[in-house]
């Protein structure tokens, strides 16, 4: 084993960081607050992958890293490791969330209706060049209906179960503190479903999209349809340690998606619909649609090699994958020097063989 020492390293490292910050200009608290106000989808992505809901700190992380999202996610993960876990919240369900968007591509007449909510899905994708020179004039207050939408909108899957299209669900009685937890236990395969869904919740958006898109293009055996996409504000409900009262400590943005596939024989021997599922902190539809397709693909008896559980979950971990990737730029002089020694010896041996007419 050998090590490499760097002379002048401390001064150079300090200067390198100073240069990085000088080129990116200083940011102030007002800029951080503006990020939080104006770029919620960016922060949702950082918080979802960072596995920590903290909008103020996510904005700070984005500002501090000049917008390098992998670095921002790493900062959030590092911060969370300094904090004690003070409670487990009650599991989110449809009754504890305020839903602002819920659509289904598979069924048009669903209980609660199709609600587009806040979206650019049907908007023209053109740059508003006029806003680069003056304040945004396009901000119109959306129209109000006379009465509000239902705050609690039932799941499409519940409707399928009521109509017999899907197998009934057995409620999971696992207390929150006993749910398998990736942050405390290593990921082993086959993973408990709780760990699979937790891994997908904090997975890299781009990584999940790449693998999911490969499946959509045909490198896989499923052809699903979106059963439901939902954006909501979910209550974080905790228990008063003295009186036991369950109360809401506030709300977080939350999204979940389901895809539905062809019939599968259920436990009762009858054909039924099969769902794939994913959810995350924040609103991130593309990640969840891809992840819920991968959830289905991973359950196939013989999935494509790129859609096995081990392949998907191991390669979509944003901190591990980006960290492993960038470690390659750190000094590898000794290990690569060893490779060069071996190469030189092989070349010398080849030349010697040539001279002696061997081989």
């Amino acid at each position: 084993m050998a090590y490499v020492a760097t002379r002048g390293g401390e001064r150079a490292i300090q200067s390198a960081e100073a240069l990085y910050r000088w080129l990116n200009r200083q940011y102030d608290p007002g800029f951080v607050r503006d990020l939080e106000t104006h770029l919620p989808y960016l922060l949702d992505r950082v918080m979802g992958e960072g596995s920590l809901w903290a909008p103020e700190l996510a904005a700070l992380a984005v500002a501090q890293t000049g917008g390098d999202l992998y670095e921002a996610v790493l900062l959030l993960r590092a911060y969370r490791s300094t904090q004690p876990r003070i409670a487990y919240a009650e599991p989110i369900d449809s009754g504890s969330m305020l839903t602002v968007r819920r659509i289904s591509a598979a069924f048009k007449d669903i209980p609660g209706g199709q609600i587009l909510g806040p979206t650019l899905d049907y908007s023209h994708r053109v740059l508003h060049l006029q806003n680069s020179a003056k304040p945004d004039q396009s901000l119109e207050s959306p129209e109000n209906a006379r009465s509000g939408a239902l705050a609690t909108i039932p799941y499409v899957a519940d409707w399928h179960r009521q109509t017999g299209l899907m197998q009934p669900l057995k409620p999971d009685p696992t207390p929150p503190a006993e749910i398998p937890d990736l942050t405390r236990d290593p990921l082993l395969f086959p993973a408990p479903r709780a760990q699979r869904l937790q891994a997908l919740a904090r997975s890299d958006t781009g990584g999940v999209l790449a693998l999911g898109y490969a499946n959509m293009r045909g490198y896989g055996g499923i052809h699903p349809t979106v059963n439901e996409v939902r954006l909501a504000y979910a209550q974080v409900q905790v228990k008063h340690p003295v009186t036991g009262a369950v109360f809401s400590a506030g709300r977080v943005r939350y999204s979940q998606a389901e895809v539905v596939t062809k019939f599968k024989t259920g436990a009762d021997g009858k054909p039924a619909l099969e769902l794939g599922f994913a959810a995350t902190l924040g609103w991130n539809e593309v990640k969840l649609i891809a992840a819920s397709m991968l959830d289905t693909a991973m359950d196939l008896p013989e999935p494509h090699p790129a859609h096995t559980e081990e392949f998907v979950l191991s390669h979509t971990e944003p901190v591990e994958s980006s960290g492993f990737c960038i470690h390659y730029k750190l000094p590898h002089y000794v290990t690569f020097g060893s490779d060069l020694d071996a190469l030189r010896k092989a070349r010398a041996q080849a030349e010697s063989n040539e001279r002696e007419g061997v081989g």
Partner: protein
Amino acid sequence: MSRGLETGAFDQAFWLGVLARADALEVKAFTDGLLPALEPLGLEVLENRTGLVMLPSTDTAKGSRFHLGEVLASESRVRLAGVEGYAVCLGRDLEHSLAVAILDAALQTGLEIELIQTFVRQQAEKLEAADQALLRRVEQTRVEMETF
């Protein structure tokens, strides 16, 4: 929705939920105004820290519970006139959760109860109005799909 507004219930879950979501500056200012009356009764801060709340969700495909991620929160515990008050608020504003914990203890003890109830109900109405305004805008985005 702010539970209690519809039912008229004014219980601990209601006031803690409302005060956690209410404007932190208003909660802190209101509590500051009560301190001269409360402090002589014996007010002790037992805990005031930030930490993480693990948030589980429920898988609608197979029914499993799983952890979605953690939520940064401030947690405070106080003792006021021998009664323990508690609060958890999202974010890391320790003064916010401390103020809510003091109000929690005061309400359990029955101190300044009318003033605090009025304040909590006013905050609940503001939150409810904001929710209703949002839901009316959400309703405007409802579509009816037709197949031709």
